[in-house]
C-alpha cells in the first residue's frame, strides 16, 4: 500500500483496445439486429400522430415500435418522488424535451436504422416550453398535470428568510448560476443482449452499477433477477451518468424478448448529449454575513435545481448541496432551502461530485465576495473561519459528521507550494502598471462527502488456487479507476503473493453475487476494504491449513510475505508454500478451486476528504480571453493505496472542474432547443487549454475504516471549479467586478469588464 504500481489493465488497452459494448463480437450476439431511437425534435408538444408506414417498408426494417405498442406502465420517479412525474418508455401523448424517445426502429443492419428512423413522421402540436427552472417553479403551466406541481423535491434547514443576518456588520448577497454541464463520457450509452433458449437473458451494458442494472432490467422484463446475466464489459467512462440504467437500455432487452432476436443499441454522440442526462444546473442565491474583522457568522443558500423533464437523481442532489453547504467553515448560523423543478430540458443526474461541487462553489464564491466587501485577503478570511484541527469529529448544522480534517494545514500547504505572496506581488505589479494581461489568483478550500449514499456494504471473495495464482472478486465496477491493480495490491499486501499473479474480477452478475457498483467515491472504502478484510481472513485460514501440514499449533504459524511461505515461528527453513496450502485446502474442501474465502465489509459511515486548490489565470483585459496557467492542489483523502491511480483521479477531476469554470456549458435556447448538443458545439475541454497540474501530497487518515482511506474520485471537480472561477474574477476584481458566472468565457469576461468600466 502506498507504492507506485503500474496498472495491470493497460497492456490490453494499448495493444488491441478495450472491449466496450460496441466492440463485442460474442457468438451469443450472432445475427443481432439494431435498435435506433426516433427522438423528439421539439421541447414541448402534444403528439397528434405518428406515421411509421414508410419506415416499416424501408430496407431491413423488422419493426417500428411506438409507445402504443408497449403494454408497459410508465416508469415512476425514484426517491419517493410524486408518481405524477412518471416517464413513458416511449412518448405517446406529450413530448417534454428535445431528444425524448418517441419510437424504436429495429433493423437488420445499423445504417438501415439511421435511414429508417428518418422516415418516421411524428406530428406535433406545439405547447409553451418552460426552459428556465426559476420560471417553472412559479409558473401556472404544469408540465405534468397529474403531479399537480412543477416541484419534484424540496429540502430545507433553518429559515433563509428569518432574522439570521440581524446584527451582522456586513451582509453580502450574490446570485450565482451553477451551470448545466454534460458528463460526456467518451463512450456513449450502449447495450447488447440475447435471450437464451433457457429463458435467461444475457445482457451487456455500459454501466457503473451492474447489479442494480440487472435488477432494473429483470423487473422491467418481468423475470427474476437470477434470470438475467448482466456482463459489464469495459466501460469508457461514466462520471455518474451511468449509475442509473436508462429506459433506452432496458427497452433493448424488452424488445429482444418480444422480437425473439438478439439486439444491439449504441447511441450516437448527439443522442448522448441531448438525452443521457446532465449535471449541476442550479440557480443559487447566496447571502453571507459577519464582522468587518473577517469572521463569518451567518450563511444562507437558496437553490433552484433544474430537474429537467423527468425528475431523476438530479432532483435529489440538492440534499447533498444542503449537507455540504457550510463547507470547511465553523459558521454558527446556517440556513438552506432548495426546490427541484421540472423543465422542458433533459433530466439532470449525478455528475462527478453530484451536489457537493455546487455546495463548494457557492460557499467559496460567498467567502470571496465577503472578503472583497471587507477588503481582506480571501486566504485570510478562510483561515479565520476554518473548523479547527482539534475539533474533529465535527457535526455541522446541516447534519454532516466530518470524521477528520486539517483545513488550515491544507490551505497553508497549497499557498506555500504556489508561492502565494510572490503571486500577489506579481498581480500588484500588473495592476499598478495597467498591464493588458492581468493576473488572477483563485483559492478554494473544500470538504466533501464520500461513500455518502452507500451502499455501505460490499462483497469480496479471494481464492488462492493450487497453482499459486489468486482470483479476487469484487462488487465494485471500475470504468477507468484501476481497481484491478489497486485491489490486487491490497490482496498482495496481506497474502505476500505478487500483484502479477492476482486477477480481479468484477461486473459479471453470475460471477459476483452482489455488488454496489462504483459511484460517489465509495469503491475503495467499501470494496477495497472488503478485499483487504477478506485477504486477512484468507491468511488466517491458510495458517490453519499450514498448521496441519507442519504439525504445529495454529498460533505458532507465521506467513513470510517476502517469500510467500508459511513456517513455524523460529523455524524459517521448514516451509509450506501457498500452492501447497491451497492444494491442501482444496483436498480438504473437495474442490479444485483451492482456498476460498468470501466475506463482506460494511463501512461505518461516510468519510470527508478535504483539501485546498489554487488556480492562476491570465486575463487579457482587451479581449476577455482567459488562460489557465497553473493549478496547485492539495487533496487529502487519507491513506493512498496506489499514488499513480489517485493522482490520475485528481488530474481528471481538476480538468473537469476547470472545464466547467472556463468553457463547458450545456445550453438551451428559449424554445428549449439544445444549442450545444454535440461535440462540435459543446466546449469540451482540450489539452491546449490546460496546464500540467501541481499536486501536493497530504494524508490525514480516517478511523472510519481499517485502511484509513477516503474517496478521491470527485475531489478534483469539487476543489478546482471554484478555484478557477475565483481566479478569473480575481483577475478583474480591481476593475470593480465582484462576480462572473460560469463558464467564464471570453465574451462574459469582456462584457463584465465593459460593465465595470461603465460603472
Amino acid at each position, binding site marked *: 500500500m502506498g507504492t507506485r504500481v503500474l496498472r495491470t489493465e493497460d497492456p490490453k488497452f*494499448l495493444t488491441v483496445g478495450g472491449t466496450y459494448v460496441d466492440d463485442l463480437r460474442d457468438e451469443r450476439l450472432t445475427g443481432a439486429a439494431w435498435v435506433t431511437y426516433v427522438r423528439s425534435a421539439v421541447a414541448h408538444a402534444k403528439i397528434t400522430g405518428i406515421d411509421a408506414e414508410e419506415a416499416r417498408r424501408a430496407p431491413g426494417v423488422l419493426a417500428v415500435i411506438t409507445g402504443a405498442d408497449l403494454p408497459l406502465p410508465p416508469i415512476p420517479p425514484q426517491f419517493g418522488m410524486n408518481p405524477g412525474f412518471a416517464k413513458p418508455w416511449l412518448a405517446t401523448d406529450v413530448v417534454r424535451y428535445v431528444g425524448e424517445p418517441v419510437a424504436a426502429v429495429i433493423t437488420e443492419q445499423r445504417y438501415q436504422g439511421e435511414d429508417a428512423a428518418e422516415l418516421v413522421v411524428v406530428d406535433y402540436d406545439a405547447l409553451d416550453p418552460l426552459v428556465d427552472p426559476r420560471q417553472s417553479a412559479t409558473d401556472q403551466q404544469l408540465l405534468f398535470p397529474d403531479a399537480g406541481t412543477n416541484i419534484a423535491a424540496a429540502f430545507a434547514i433553518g429559515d433563509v428568510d428569518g432574522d439570521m443576518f440581524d446584527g451582522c456588520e456586513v451582509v453580502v448577497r450574490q446570485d450565482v448560476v451553477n451551470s448545466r454541464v454534460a458528463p460526456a*463520457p467518451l463512450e456513449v450509452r450502449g447495450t447488447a443482449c440475447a435471450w437464451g433458449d433457457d429463458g435467461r437473458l444475457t445482457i451487456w451494458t455500459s454501466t457503473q452499477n451492474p447489479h442494480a442494472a440487472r435488477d432494473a432490467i429483470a423487473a422491467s422484463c418481468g423475470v427474476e433477477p437470477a434470470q438475467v446475466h448482466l456482463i459489464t464489459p469495459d466501460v469508457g467512462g461514466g462520471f455518474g451518468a451511468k449509475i442509473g440504467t436508462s429506459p433506452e437500455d432496458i427497452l433493448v432487452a424488452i424488445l429482444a424478448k418480444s422480437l425473439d432476436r438478439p439486439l444491439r443499441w449504441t447511441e450516437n454522440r448527439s443522442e448522448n448529449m441531448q438525452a443521457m442526462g446532465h449535471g449541476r444546473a442550479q440557480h443559487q442565491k447566496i447571502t453571507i454575513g459577519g464582522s468587518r474583522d473577517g469572521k463569518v457568522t451567518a450563511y444562507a443558500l437558496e437553490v433552484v435545481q433544474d430537474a429537467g423533464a423527468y425528475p431523476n437523481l438530479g432532483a435529489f442532489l440538492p440534499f447533498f448541496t444542503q449537507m455540504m453547504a457550510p463547507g470547511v467553515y465553523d459558521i454558527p448560523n446556517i440556513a438552506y432551502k432548495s426546490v427541484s423543478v421540472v423543465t422542458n430540458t433533459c433530466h439532470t443526474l449525478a455528475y462527478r461530485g453530484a451536489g457537493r461541487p455546487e455546495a463548494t462553489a457557492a460557499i467559496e464564491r460567498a467567502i470571496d465576495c465577503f472578503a472583497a466587501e471587507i477588503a481582506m485577503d480571501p486566504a485570510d478570511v478562510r483561515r479565520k473561519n476554518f473548523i479547527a484541527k482539534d475539533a474533529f469529529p465535527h457535526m455541522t448544522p446541516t447534519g454532516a459528521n466530518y470524521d477528520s480534517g486539517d483545513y488550515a494545514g491544507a490551505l497553508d500547504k497549497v499557498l506555500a507550494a504556489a508561492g502565494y505572496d510572490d503571486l500577489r506581488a506579481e498581480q500588484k505589479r500588473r495592476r499598478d502598471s495597467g498591464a493588458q494581461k492581468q493576473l488572477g489568483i483563485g483559492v478554494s478550500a473544500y470538504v466533501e462527502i464520500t461513500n455518502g449514499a452507500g451502499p455501505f456494504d460490499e462483497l469480496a471473495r479471494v481464492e488462492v488456487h493450487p497453482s499459486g495464482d489468486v482470483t479476487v472478486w469484487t462488487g465494485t465496477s471500475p470504468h477507468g479507476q484501476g481497481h484491478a491493480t489497486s485491489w490486487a495490491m491490497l490482496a498482495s499486501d496481506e497474502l505476500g503473493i505478487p500483484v502479477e499473479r492476482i486477477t480481479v474480477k468484477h461486473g459479471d452478475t453470475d460471477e459476483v453475487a452482489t455488488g454496489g457498483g462504483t459511484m460517489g467515491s465509495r469503491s475503495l472504502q467499501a470494496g477495497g476494504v472488503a478485499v483487504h478484510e477478506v485477504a486477512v481472513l484468507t491468511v488466517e485460514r491458510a495458517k490453519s491449513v499450514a498448521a496441519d501440514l507442519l504439525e504445529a499449533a495454529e498460533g505458532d504459524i507465521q506467513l513470510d510475505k517476502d517469500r510467500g511461505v508459511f513456517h513455524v515461528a523460529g523455524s524459517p527453513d521448514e516451509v509450506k508454500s501457498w500452492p501447497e496450502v491451497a492444494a491442501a485446502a482444496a483436498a480438504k474442501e473437495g474442490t479444485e478451486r483451492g482456498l476460498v474465502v468470501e466475506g463482506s465489509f460494511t463501512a461505518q459511515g461516510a468519510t470527508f476528504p478535504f483539501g485546498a486548490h489554487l488556480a492562476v489565470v491570465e486575463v487579457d483585459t482587451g479581449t476577455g480571453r482567459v488562460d489557465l496557467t497553473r493549478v496547485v492542489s492539495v487533496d487529502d483523502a487519507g491513506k493512498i493505496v496506489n499514488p499513480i491511480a489517485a493522482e490520475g483521479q485528481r488530474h481528471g477531476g481538476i480538468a473537469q472542474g476547470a472545464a466547467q469554470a472556463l468553457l463547458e456549458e450545456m445550453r438551451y435556447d428559449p424554445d428549449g432547443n439544445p444549442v450545444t448538443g454535440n461535440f462540435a458545439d459543446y466546449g469540451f475541454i482540450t489539452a491546449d487549454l490546460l496546464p500540467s*497540474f501541481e499536486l501536493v501530497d497530504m494524508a490525514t487518515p480516517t478511523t472510519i475504516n481499517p485502511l484509513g482511506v477516503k474517496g478521491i474520485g470527485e475531489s478534483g471537480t469539487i476543489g478546482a471549479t471554484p478555484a478557477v472561477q475565483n481566479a478569473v474574477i480575481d483577475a478583474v476584481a480591481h476593475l470593480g467586478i465582484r462576480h462572473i458566472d460560469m463558464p467564464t468565457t471570453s465574451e462574459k469576461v469582456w462584457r463584465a469588464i465593459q460593465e465595470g468600466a461603465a460603472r
Partner: protein
Amino acid sequence: MKVSLTVNGQRREADVEDRTLLIHFLRDQLDLTGANVGCDTTSCGACTVLVDGESVKSCTVLTASADGSDITTIEGLSPAGQLDHPVQKAFREKHGLQCGFCTPGMVMAAISLLEENPHPTEEEVRSGLEGNLCRCTGYHNIVAAVLSAAEAGK
C-alpha cells in the same frame, strides 16, 4: 464498390457501400475494434488511425477514398501483444490512460505528432493533441507520456 488497401501490413480487398466510413470498415468488416467512435462531428479523435503514416480521423474518411492506402491501427503496433512501440510503453509508464476509450486514437495521434516533431515542447504536445479528447486524465499524464516517449527517442 470494391476497395483494396493495406491494413496493419495485410492486403485487404472488400466490397463496401459507397458511403461506408473508414472507421466502420475497420471496425465492422475487419473487426479491428481498437479505434472507437466517440462523436459524430469529427471532434473527439477516438477513431484516429494512420493513413500512409499520418494521423487521420477515420470517421471523416470514406473507405472508398482510402482505396490503395496503407493503414495502421493500434492493433498494428505490437502484433505480439507486447508494448513494442515507445509511445505505448510511455502511456503505460506515465499512466496516460484510465478508461481506455480515447487511448487507441490518442496513441496514434501521438505517434504522428512525434514523427513530425520528434522533440516537442509541452506546449507543442498540447496543441498537437488538441483534436483528441480525453475525459479521464485531464491530459496531464498523456502529455507526460508523449514528452517521455520523445525523450526516450533521443
